[in-house]
């Protein structure tokens, strides 16, 4: 009743092929965008912006990146954290080499470096498949992490070995560095995330995206039908790493302010993989839902005992969080292995036929 496409006639191919042919979808997206761009900045406090919204958006973008590789092209990757790290270090080097350049442009450019490295580590994927591919991406993860530690040029020979984000202004507004306001950071992160997400939504339904899905479903069959595996797989690796790299650069520039190699460890890779799987493989909206779940749940868990008046040591809470998150992941996998995206699809179907389900 609320979600019904009956009566929405299309009079041109263009309208029929639109990204969102159904009015309700367009309205829904518009509402979400209005909330994100207007309501949240107007009402939220700094804490909400810095510790929930900004990380959520950064992780969503990283999850989109991994989803392109794993969900749409079927190549399992455990090296997401390292590719994000490449983006972060590249952005750091770029801003220190070109101090006057626009920092947003630098962040977007940094993804190019991680795309190149991602494509290199994607090369074995032509010969190694499935779970075996996990080892090449793990090689990337540990090798790149080692590079972040052992190549002092990457962090400008700092004594601490960490990268610290310099003070940069964009159009007179402090965009990065410790003085940047949460609001400015939020808008930059939101803008980049929305832009890339919409771009990807279009790429994925085009020729490139469909060739990725062919490779995912069966690479030999795809090859027989004229898809070049080399080009297609490497492109998936490059695009995925580009997005992860941008997310990694945003993570340090607009959220953490400083990062050390351990920020981009294998734990981050797993976290992103969880977001993708729980959100739903092969779904962009799933990436957002997964990121929200995996990031926001521990934050909430941290405050629940306090609100209930139970006084627990920080350590105990952390351990309990680990347990609960692990248990919930298993629970959700059992209940709905296709992730939140499938739940959302089911919900939409229910709305469509409501109130007469038969």
């Amino acid at each position, binding site marked *: 009743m609320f979600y019904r496409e009956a009566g929405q006639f299309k009079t041109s191919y263009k309208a029929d092929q639109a990204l969102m042919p159904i009015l309700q979808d367009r309205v829904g997206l518009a509402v979400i965008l209005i909330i994100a761009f207007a309501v949240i900045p107007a009402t939220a406090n700094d804490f909400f912006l810095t510790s929930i919204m900004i990380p959520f958006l950064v992780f969503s973008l990283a999850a989109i990146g991994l989803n392109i590789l794993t969900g749409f092209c079927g190549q399992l990757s455990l090296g997401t954290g390292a590719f994000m790290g490449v983006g972060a270090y590249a952005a750091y080097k770029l801003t220190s080499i070109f101090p006057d350049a626009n920092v947003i442009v630098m962040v977007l450019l940094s993804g190019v470096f991680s795309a190149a490295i991602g494509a290199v580590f994607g090369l074995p994927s032509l*010969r190694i498949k499935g*779970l075996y591919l996990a080892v090449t991406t793990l*090689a990337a993860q540990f090798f790149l992490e080692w590079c972040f530690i*052992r190549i002092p040029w990457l962090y400008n020979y700092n004594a601490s070995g960490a990268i610290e984000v310099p003070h940069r202004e964009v159009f007179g507004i402090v965009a990065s560095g410790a003085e940047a306001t949460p609001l400015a950071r939020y808008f930059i992160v939101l803008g980049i995330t929305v832009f890339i997400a919409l771009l990807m939504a279009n790429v994925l339904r085009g020729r490139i995206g469909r060739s990725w899905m062919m490779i995912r479903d069966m690479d030999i069959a795809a090859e027989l039908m004229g898809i070049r595996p080399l080009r297609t797989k490497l492109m998936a690796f490059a695009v995925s790493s580009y997005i992860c790299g941008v997310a990694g650069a945003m993570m340090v520039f607009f959220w953490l302010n400083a990062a050390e190699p351990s920020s981009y460890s294998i734990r981050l890779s797993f976290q992103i993989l969880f977001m993708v799987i729980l959100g739903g493989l092969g779904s962009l909206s799933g990436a957002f839902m997964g990121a929200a779940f995996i990031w926001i749940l521990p934050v909430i868990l941290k405050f629940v005992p306090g609100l209930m008046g139970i006084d627990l040591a920080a350590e105990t809470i952390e351990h309990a969080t680990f*347990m609960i998150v692990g248990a919930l992941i298993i629970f959700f*996998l059992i209940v709905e*292995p296709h992730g939140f995206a499938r739940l959302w699809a089911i919900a939409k179907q229910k709305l469509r036929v409501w109130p007469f389900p038969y």
Partner: protein
Amino acid sequence: MLYDIFIDPFVQMYDMPDFFLQVLWEGFVAGILYALIALGFVLIFKASGVFNFAQGIMVVFAGLTLVGLNENGVPAYLALILTIGVMGVLAYGVERVVMRPLVNQPDIILLMATIGLTYFLVGFGEFVFGGEPKQMITEQLGLPTGSTAFEIGERGLVILQHIDIAAAVIAVLMVAALGIFFNKTRIGRALRAVADDHQAALSVGISLNQIWAIVWFAAGLVALATGIMWGARSDVSFALEIVAFKALPVLILGGFTSIPGAIVGGLIIGFGEKIGELYWGGLVGGGIESWLAYIIALVFLLFRPQGLFGERIIERI
């Protein structure tokens, strides 16, 4: 530069044979321990097709349970028996709660479920026994602790830790026991039948659920032995999970389904890693142990995509 890469390390090996032997021994012991972890993976993968990421954490969890029980006043041997019991309960629980509802799901979902299990076990272990590193109760368990020095040549000296020798012996015994178990017992045959074909095994009256619980229990026992050995070399804490990641290239190198593969893979990685680190690592600033194993596995994989002993992958359309 070329001299440093291609000639100097070999000259060193020749000049100081005692050091080289020591390195080989270190590599051997590390390789055995990697192989033990990989063995746990292989057991579960063979029987259920589940890539059990939690094996590394099970190692730590078993070690931690053992030490934790002992700290709370349980005698060492009783603690050992209790820990075996705990691993049994864990195996049954995992089979009942995690594996059974997820039958027939794609590989990656099962993999994720075991990673979820990993998180749960990390949280649970730290919740119960605390997060700080613990000393393994080597002596109470009656394991040797000293070391023996052998003289090699005129001035060389190779030091062998007794615990390492014990680890090697136990590993060999364990592999032999598993071999006998797989080939000579009724349950072992059932396990192999399940590994070959789930449906065919079901049709001749083998209970899959029972087999999975047994296999997880066997993997738990292997994890316990590994935990004791590894814990004796360094402290028991969840920092050991990094070792679990090392077992991955071992496993992939050997092939997911092969027990000999796990052993050979473990030894290759162990030797390669130590020799590479000590003779070539200095050239690039050291610490290459953290990724060398993966690169070795990667090189092998490029030539044999199914691993050294894996079954040939046949693709059909």
